[in-house]
């Protein structure tokens, strides 16, 4: 059975290491915060200007001056600090964040990612996504393996405008985990329960390494 969104988030959370500073994107990546392994201390960065992001507030305790990069109300922790947007992206661009987990519309076999624009439709803007994929030490994508029409989102090369080139180290989809090795090629490193390599082959356009 293919992984659910929560399964993907749980698997992504296994990539968190003790002491890591992590930036989580919108969607499935946000769920990762619910599955941080026990004994692993992780500090979440929110690129609008916060390190040490806490949980959502209790009802009625929302503070309009305290939101995350998804514009949701959040809370602070004892360790938290606030800073301005230039300092926040200096932190990101300068390689001080260990891991970024992002959603994607497309990922290519050479690690390109597209997740900000569909030409002809409305353009919302890239926000901080281009900065994150260019600056964070390791970037990981969680996404459905195929789109609603059943077409592969894991491609030979991206058809949509890129967010970044050669920057994704790992892709976690509903079908499994795909990790890049030293040669730069993605390989199947894990399958979701009941998923076969043949099913992955059928649903993957990218040239990846099968065991």
């Amino acid at each position, binding site marked *: 059975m293919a992984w659910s969104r929560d399964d993907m988030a749980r698997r992504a959370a296994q990539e968190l290491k003790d002491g890591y500073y992590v930036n989580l994107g919108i969607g499935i990546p946000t769920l990762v915060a619910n599955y941080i392994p026990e004994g692993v201390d992780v500090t979440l960065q929110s*690129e609008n200007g*916060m390190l040490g992001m806490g*949980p959502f507030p209790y*009802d009625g305790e929302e503070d*309009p001056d305290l939101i995350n990069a998804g514009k949701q109300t959040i809370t602070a922790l004892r360790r938290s600090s606030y800073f301005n*947007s230039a300092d926040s992206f200096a932190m990101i661009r300068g390689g001080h964040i260990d891991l970024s987990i992002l959603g994607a519309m497309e990922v290519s076999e050479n690690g390109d990612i597209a997740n900000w624009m569909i030409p002809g439709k*409305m353009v*919302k803007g890239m926000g901080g996504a*281009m900065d994150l994929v260019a600056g964070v030490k390791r970037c990981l994508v969680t996404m459905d393996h195929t789109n609603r029409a059943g077409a592969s989102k894991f491609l030979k090369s991206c058809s949509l405008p890129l967010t970044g080139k050669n920057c994704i180290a790992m892709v976690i989809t509903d079908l499994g985990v795909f990790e890049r090795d030293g040669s730069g090629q993605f390989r199947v490193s894990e399958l979701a329960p009941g998923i076969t390599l043949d099913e992955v082959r059928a649903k993957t356009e990218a040239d990846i390494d099968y065991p």
Partner: protein
Amino acid sequence: MSKKIYENAAHALEGLTFDGMSVMAGGFGLCGIPENLIAALRDSGAQNITAIFNNAGVDGFGLGLLLETRQIKKMVSSYVGENKEFERQYLAGELELEFNPQGTMAERIRAGGAGIPGFYTKTGVGTVIADGKPTREFDGETYIMETGLTCDVALVKAWRGDAQGNLQFKDTARNFNPMMATAGEITIVEVDELVEVGSFNPNFIHTPGVFVQRIIQAKCEKRIEKVTTRGPRPIEGDA
């Protein structure tokens, strides 16, 4: 030096607005936006504004006010996904739009205020953002050049300020505000609280007064875009 304090937003903008002006306004989404100054800018009637705002506000609030009245000619932003009127004007070709990666935008504004006309970044290399921009190699890697940004008038929202123009910002309402304060030919600030000079610990002033020309105290509505909670607070004693 109480010469910096103005009575209200309209007074603070007096003599500074004109057709074709460039304006920065702080804020991330609706968090930390200078609500009263934006409304006063709309009321000033200035046209063909180049607006350097990270976001486009929502319909009818924040920067949405200036879009409704079509006072904006060009937007420089990183994300405008929350505003339908923006979408309509943009698709109808009534509005120019220049997207900047958020970190590049923040750095361009800081650079503008710091006398740095250009800098190199790897953000956007290999994307449409790099189109037409000069590149340079450092240690075998390619970077693109981005330029510093300044403006005629910067509109800033702070938490507390004093008559010298010293400012403190609150939580994530800080965002773009401190850099924009440095990048305006004239910088106007609205604060939640105007405090006595000497109230601040000088170690914890986010924006030194030199960057601020005019300041008002004003009440903000502070709308929340996405109220998100984890449910009711547990009764004391529960886990």
